[in-house]
């Protein structure tokens, strides 16, 4: 069965979006991404170290012709910096897709919602395809969709926490309302968390730490790919309703007496 993840008119086979941070080296990054099956990868924009002549670059390991590069605005604490970062990213020539995150506090890394909305308005007007990182808040999701964001990306739990989906009910409300893809972004810890997101009906899951900081990142990348696939298939198959009491699986007729 053909089942594509569609974002801004582009079709992808994989519903897993992976980050490229925290790996031991670029080679491990490349291998983990390959095994994960992800077709969209996030990157950050940072100053070049001008005193270090070793100029190996992440894009030497991730062919932008093969992967959709999704630059983020991580580390930005106001709308102006986030917009500036997106403009720089676009100039790199990898497309108009941006992961907008405006951080409100460095302990929780929760988003600054008013600043995210402010930045999203500017970026949408400038023709960016904006994927905003937000709280698991249906109202924020609605506002950002109204502004013209191409998807909404509620967190499962704080970035890098590995707590999994803490409020599946809010995610369900967001899903019920949204006409754009809903991507769970941040807080996933293990494959069952990714599967749960898919079983809820989410369109995709974005993760970084859960893979990169696992003891064996390559094996975890595979586990995540399978978790996403299993969860998606279970969602499409339609699970049975939960019941309090048993229903026998074997026929009641013909039992020996």
């Amino acid at each position, binding site marked *: 069965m053909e089942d594509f993840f569609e974002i801004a008119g582009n079709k992808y086979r994989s519903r897993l979006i992976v*980050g*490229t*941070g*925290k*790996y031991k080296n670029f080679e491990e*990054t490349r291998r983990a991404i390959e095994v994960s099956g992800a077709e969209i990868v*996030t*990157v*950050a*924009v*940072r*100053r*070049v170290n*001008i005193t270090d*002549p070793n*100029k190996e*670059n*992440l*894009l*030497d390991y991730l062919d932008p012709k093969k992967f959709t*590069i999704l*630059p*983020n605005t*991580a580390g930005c604490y106001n709308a102006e910096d986030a917009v500036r970062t997106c*403009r*720089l*990213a676009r*100039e*790199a*020539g*990898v497309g108009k897709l941006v992961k907008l995150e405006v951080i409100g506090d460095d302990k929780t890394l929760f988003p600054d919602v008013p600043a995210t909305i402010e930045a999203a308005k500017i970026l949408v007007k400038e023709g960016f395809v904006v994927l905003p990182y937000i709280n698991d808040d249906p109202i924020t999701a609605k506002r950002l969709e109204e502004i013209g964001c191409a998807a909404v990306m509620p967190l499962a739990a704080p*970035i*890098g926490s590995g707590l999994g989906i803490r409020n599946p009910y809010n995610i369900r409300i967001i899903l019920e309302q949204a006409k754009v893809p809903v991507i769970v972004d*941040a807080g996933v810890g293990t494959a069952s968390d990714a599967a749960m997101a898919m079983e809820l009906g989410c369109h995709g899951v*974005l*993760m*970084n*730490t859960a893979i990169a900081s696992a003891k064996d990142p390559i094996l975890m990348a595979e586990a995540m790919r399978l978790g996403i696939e299993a969860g998606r298939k279970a969602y499409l198959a339609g699970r049975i309703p939960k019941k309090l009491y048993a229903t026998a699986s074997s026929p009641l007729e013909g039992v020996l007496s």
Partner: protein
Amino acid sequence: MKLKINGEEREIADGLTLAALLEDLKIRPARVVIEHNREIVAREAYGVTRLAEGDTLEIVHFVGGG
């Protein structure tokens, strides 16, 4: 002349173009994006962008991130 590159004061030769500076720093133009006095410079314009005393440059690239 003195420039501020990525937040650091640097002494470079007078009248250098952006393209020549990148060559001096051994930075591949294809992998970076540059702001010159807060304005993004198109890659095709590196060769004709002349630097001046007191200019500010931000040279950025993509790194691993989530």
